[in-house]
C-alpha cells in the first residue's frame, strides 16, 4: 500500500490583455499536481471560448436519460429561444466511464416570458437554472454563463481535459480542479467547477461552516442540491456580487473576514468597513481550510482562508497571471516568471482584463 498524499488541486490562468490561448495549457498545469487528486473528479472552466455565441447563455446540461432530457427541453422551450443545441463534443477515453448525456444549448430568454416574470435577465436565468436542478429529476445544468463554459467529470483532470477535447477551445482565462473528495461522494455533478451564470468556483479544502452558510443563502431562493460544500460558495458569490452589489474585494473580506484582533490593529476607516462587513454579512464567513479560484466574466479571483490552511501560489509573466496550489504547476507551463508570490491568508488576488480596468477608469 503506497501512501496516498491527499489534497485537491486548483489552477487558474488568465491573459489580462484578453489574448485567447489553448485549453491545453491549463490541462498541462493541473496534470502536474496529479498526486493531489484521486480520480474522483476533475473539471475546467473556460472564459471567452464561445465568441460566435457571446450574446447567448451557454447552458451545459447533464442528463441521466432521454426522459429527463425531454422534460428539460420542454422547459427550455417554454422559457428560452434556443439558438443552437448539440451534444458537447467528447472523445472516448478509457479512464472516463459512465458518462451521462452531455448537451449544450445557446439560449436567450423569451421576451414575453421575461417581461411576465418582472425579473432582470440574469435573475430570470438563475431562477430557471435552479428550477431545472431542483425540479427536473435527472437533469442538471452545470454551466449557465455567456461566452464561458464548464467541463467536468469523474476522473483525473488531465483525462477529463482529453475527454472534453479541451485543447480545441481557446479562451482568455481557464480554471481547473483535481478532486480528492474526503467526505462527500465523487460523482459527475459533484466535480468542480461549480458555476452559476458566469461565476465559477474551484475549491481545495473543506467548509466546516457549510450548514450555517447553506441555511443563510437558502433564504434567498438558492437551493443546495449537489451534496458538496463548494456549491454554497458559488451561490454566496453570486448573491453578494450580482444581487447585493459588493465589490470582489469586499467579498474577500466577507468570506475570509479578518479576526477581530487583526481588525483592532487597522486604521479607523478600514476598521469601520471591516466591522461593517463582519456584522452585516457574518453568515457568509467561510470557516475551515480553503483555497479557491473564482472565475467571472473578465477576470479571476483567488482567495485563501484567513488562517491559510491551504497552499496557493501566484505567478506573473507579462500579461499572463497564473494561480495554482503548487508553484510547480505554474513553472511547468511557464518556467520564466517575472514575479512569483504566495498571497497571505484572507488576502484576495483579483485579476481583471486591462480593457475592463480602462472601462472602469473611464466610467
Amino acid at each position, binding site marked *: 500500500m503506497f501512501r496516498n498524499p491527499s489534497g485537491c488541486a486548483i489552477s487558474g490562468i488568465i491573459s489580462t490583455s484578453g489574448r485567447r490561448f489553448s485549453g491545453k495549457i491549463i490541462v498541462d498545469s493541473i496534470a502536474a499536481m496529479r498526486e493531489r487528486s484521486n480520480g474522483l473528479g476533475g473539471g475546467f472552466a473556460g472564459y471567452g471560448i464561445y465568441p460566435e455565441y457571446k450574446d447567448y447563455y451557454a447552458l451545459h446540461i447533464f442528463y441521466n436519460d432521454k426522459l429527463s432530457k425531454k422534460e428539460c427541453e420542454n422547459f427550455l422551450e417554454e422559457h428560452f429561444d434556443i439558438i443552437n443545441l448539440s451534444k458537447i463534443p467528447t472523445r472516448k477515453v478509457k479512464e472516463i466511464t459512465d458518462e451521462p448525456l452531455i448537451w449544450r444549448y445557446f439560449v436567450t430568454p423569451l421576451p414575453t416570458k421575461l417581461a411576465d416574470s418582472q425579473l432582470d435577465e440574469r435573475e430570470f436565468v438563475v431562477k430557471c437554472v435552479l428550477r431545472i436542478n431542483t425540479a427536473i429529476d435527472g437533469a442538471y445544468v452545470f454551466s449557465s454563463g455567456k461566452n464561458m463554459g464548464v467541463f467536468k467529470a469523474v476522473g483525473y483532470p488531465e483525462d477529463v481535459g482529453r475527454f472534453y477535447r479541451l485543447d480545441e477551445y481557446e479562451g482568455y482565462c481557464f480554471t481547473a480542479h483535481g478532486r480528492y473528495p474526503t467526505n462527500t461522494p465523487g460523482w459527475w455533478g459533484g466535480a468542480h467547477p461549480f458555476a452559476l451564470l458566469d461565476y465559477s468556483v474551484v475549491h481545495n479544502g473543506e467548509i466546516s461552516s457549510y450548514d450555517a452558510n447553506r441555511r443563510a443563502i437558502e433564504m434567498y431562493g438558492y437551493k443546495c442540491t449537489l451534496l458538496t460544500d463548494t456549491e454554497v460558495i458559488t451561490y454566496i458569490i453570486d448573491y453578494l456580487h450580482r444581487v447585493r452589489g459588493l465589490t470582489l474585494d469586499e467579498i474577500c473580506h466577507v468570506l475570509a473576514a479578518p479576526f477581530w484582533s487583526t481588525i483592532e490593529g487597522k486604521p479607523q476607516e478600514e476598521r469601520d468597513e471591516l466591522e461593517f462587513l463582519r456584522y452585516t454579512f457574518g453568515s457568509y464567513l467561510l470557516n475551515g481550510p480553503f483555497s479557491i479560484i473564482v472565475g467571472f466574466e473578465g477576470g479571476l479571483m483567488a482567495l485563501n482562508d484567513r488562517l491559510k490552511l491551504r497552499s496557493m501560489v501566484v505567478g506573473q509573466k507579462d500579461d499572463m497571471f497564473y494561480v495554482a496550489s503548487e508553484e510547480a504547476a505554474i513553472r511547468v507551463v511557464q518556467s520564466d516568471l517575472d514575479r512569483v508570490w*504566495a498571497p497571505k491568508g484572507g488576502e484576495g488576488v483579483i485579476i481583471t482584463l486591462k480593457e475592463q480596468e480602462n472601462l472602469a477608469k473611464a466610467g
Partner: protein
Amino acid sequence: MNLCALNLGYRELNELVHGSEEDVVIDQCFGQRFIGSGASSKTIIINGTPGNALGAYLDGASIIVNGNAQDAVGDTMNDGKIIIYGNAGDTLGYGMRGGKIFVRGNSGYRTGIHMKEYRDKKPVIVVGGSTGSFLGEYLAGGLIIVLGLGTEEFPTGYFTGTGMHGGEIFIRSNIVPRGLPKQVTLSQASPSDIKRIEENLVEFSDLFGVSMDEILGKTFHRLMPNATNPYKQLYTEN
C-alpha cells in the same frame, strides 16, 4: 549521477535517488514530492521546483535547491542540511528535530511549527527574508532565526509564537514585535545571545554571500516561552 525529472513521477524519481550511492543532480524538477526523504548520506542538488515534503525525515544527507521549494520542507527532519537559494512554502521544518535549514528568500506560514529538541539534537532554521503568520507555532525546541533582509517592514506576520513552549526565535528588525501571545517573552538579544547563534549567521553569510556587517546591522529580538510548563493549569493542575 544526473537525472532529468521532467517526465518522471515522484515514485520513479525517488527510487533512482535512493538507489544512488553517489551525489545526485536533478534537473527540470517540477513538483515531484518526497525528494531525499530519509536520506542519510550524499548530496542532492535540485534545479527546478521540488514538490512538497522535500527532505522529509532527512537523516544526515544534504539537499541544495536552486529555485523555490514548496510546502513542508524538512518535515520531521532528524539530521543533515537543506539549503534553498529561493523561497520556501508553508510549514517549513514541520516537527523538525535535528539538522539545519537555510533559506535565502522568504518562507510561508507556520515556519518551524512544532519543532522540538532533545539533548544534542537541536534543529535550526534560518530564513533570510520574511515569513508568513504563525511563525514558530507550538514551538517546543530548537532555534529559528528570521533575518528580514531586504525589507524595512517587520518580517513576520500575525500570531508569531502561538502555543510556543520551548525553543528560541530571533527576529532581526528595527521594529519591535507587537501582539505576541501571553506565554512568549520578548527581549533584545544580548551580545552573548548573538555569540550563541553566530555560527549559524556566519554559515548563512558564507552560503549566500551576504556580509556579516549587513546581517548584524539591525537589532535582533529574542522570543522565549515564559514558563517551563505553560500548560500548567490549562486543563488541570499538573
